């Protein structure tokens, strides 16, 4: 297990007694990340890929280094890493660039457990192109049900979450990608909940695209990543047009820049990329297998210690990644969350941006405790104690 007490001290926001358990929404940031961004703004803030003066060169070098650091982290090439705003924008990039080429009768496969970020773009692109949206159902344990039945010769795109942000399910993406490739479909993985928690190797998975967010892995908000196989990226049309994505602009036409710059139009989030370097360095120092086993132990401990609370029902499969979603009798999760907030405990209550899934569970909202590297067993003890208090007050 990680030394979470020690890690916690490196996160300024956690120094005031906050028990933060909404890590699937966003994680807190260590000094290392905050200071690197402060250093950029105080010492070498300049736009990238333009100026020839020293700080412009320094900013450009650092921004390009960020591509290399992220690439190494997921075993990709630097030119296969595109910086976006977040996972949502990364998925939209693929949806608009590749999805708009879909024709009537083509099929896109997603699943019922997708976050809205991997649900709504495909739903809307299918409406625009008259393609068919196929949704893999889930079984009573919260696992995908017979995914192979939904992938056929008409399938052009398969876009699946690596790990559910509600159930914690880790999907068999390697098999899904293999099946997609058998029918020559593009395989996209939503890694928003997987990349922060365990080693994700794009070469090993053989996915065509992987999307994830910096802010869910100790990095700043506003920086996300789209990995794409270079041979596919080279053939793809840009999603956003403008500055920095061009090689040469004439009155009648434009030659686009090389990858990944062709997909990074406009002034990018340089400080975000710099913060993300330090977030990745931080996680690498802890080692991802330790990160994973740490949250596994917290989940196990929470399920054990909360089992004596009658009417507390946890959702999802037995093996969960990073989080537990649950319900306490008829108590609305917002009441629970508001009450726990009085005890300085932050958990999430709501539809988790996965309305189709939460509705399938027969609920309008669920509560969710999600863990990360700085959470301790003591945090879990406080949560369980808080839940017992809630139960007493609301008599549920």
């Amino acid at each position, binding site marked *: 297990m990680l030394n979470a007490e020690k890690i916690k001290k490196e996160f300024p926001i956690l120094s005031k007694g906050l028990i933060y358990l909404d890590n699937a929404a966003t994680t807190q940031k260590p000094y290392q990340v905050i200071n690197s961004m402060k250093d950029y703004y105080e010492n070498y803030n300049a736009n990238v890929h333009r100026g020839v003066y020293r700080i412009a060169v320094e900013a450009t070098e650092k921004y390009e280094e960020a591509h290399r650091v992220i690439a190494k982290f997921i075993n990709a090439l630097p030119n296969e890493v595109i910086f976006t705003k977040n996972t949502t924008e990364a998925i939209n990039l693929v949806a608009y660039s590749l999805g708009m080429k879909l024709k009537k009768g083509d099929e896109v496969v997603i699943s019922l457990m997708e976050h809205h970020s991997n649900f709504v773009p495909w739903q809307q692109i299918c409406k625009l192109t008259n393609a068919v949206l196929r949704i893999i159902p889930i079984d009573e344990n919260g696992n995908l049900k017979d995914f192979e039945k939904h992938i056929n010769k008409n399938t052009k795109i398969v876009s699946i979450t690596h790990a559910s942000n509600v159930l914690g399910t880790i999907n068999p993406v390697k098999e899904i990608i293999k099946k997609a490739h058998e029918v020559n479909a593009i395989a996209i993985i939503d890694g928003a909940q997987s990349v922060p928690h365990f080693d994700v190797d794009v070469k090993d998975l053989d996915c065509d695209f992987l999307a994830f967010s910096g802010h869910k892995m100790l990095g700043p908000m506003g920086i996300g990543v789209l990995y794409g196989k270079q041979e596919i990226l080279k053939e793809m049309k840009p999603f956003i047009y403008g500055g920095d994505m061009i090689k040469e602009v004439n009155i009648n036409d434009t030659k686009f820049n090389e990858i990944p710059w062709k997909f990074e139009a406009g002034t990018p989030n340089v400080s975000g990329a710099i913060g993300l370097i330090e977030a990745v360095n931080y996680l690498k120092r802890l080692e991802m297998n330790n990160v994973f086993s740490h949250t596994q132990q917290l989940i196990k401990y929470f399920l054990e210690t909360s089992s004596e609370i009658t009417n507390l029902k946890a959702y999802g499969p037995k093996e969960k990644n990073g989080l537990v979603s649950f319900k306490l009798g008829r108590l*609305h999760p917002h*009441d629970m969350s508001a009450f726990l907030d009085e005890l300085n405990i932050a958990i999430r*209550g*709501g539809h988790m941006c996965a309305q189709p899934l939460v509705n399938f569970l027969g609920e*309008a*909202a669920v509560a969710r405790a999600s863990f990360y590297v700085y959470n301790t067993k003591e945090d879990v003890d406080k949560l369980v104690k808080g839940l017992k208090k809630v139960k007493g*007050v609301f008599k549920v």
Partner: protein
Amino acid sequence: MDIHMENILDHWRNPRNSGIMKDADIIFSDSNPLCGDEIKMQLKVKNNNIKEVKFLGRGCSISQAAADLLSDYVKDKNLNDIKNIKNEEMIKMLGIEIGPVRIKCALLGLFALKKGIYLKEGIKMEDSNLNGQITN
């Protein structure tokens, strides 16, 4: 625990005005998609005055208690007066501080009631037409 919060929990646990109304003159259902709170207001009206009120709903303690308190409050009131109930009046009935996140829960019943009355007159009201008085 705060006495007002006790009161809210009491109305949530044991609502006085919850149930199905047969032969209602006005029925209106509304929901908050963000939290999934649902309220259906049912009214019997005579000479433009409310004779009976019942609500059906599910959701958080604030939304359900607010609908219950509101049902008591509007009995025997004139429909036009109800249209003029201020959001602050509803919050005052609850007696606790309502932050920006929970304001929609607190006002769901009131909005459903007003929308139902307006609809009876053939006017479709949206939240944006009704929430002019929301201060936070």
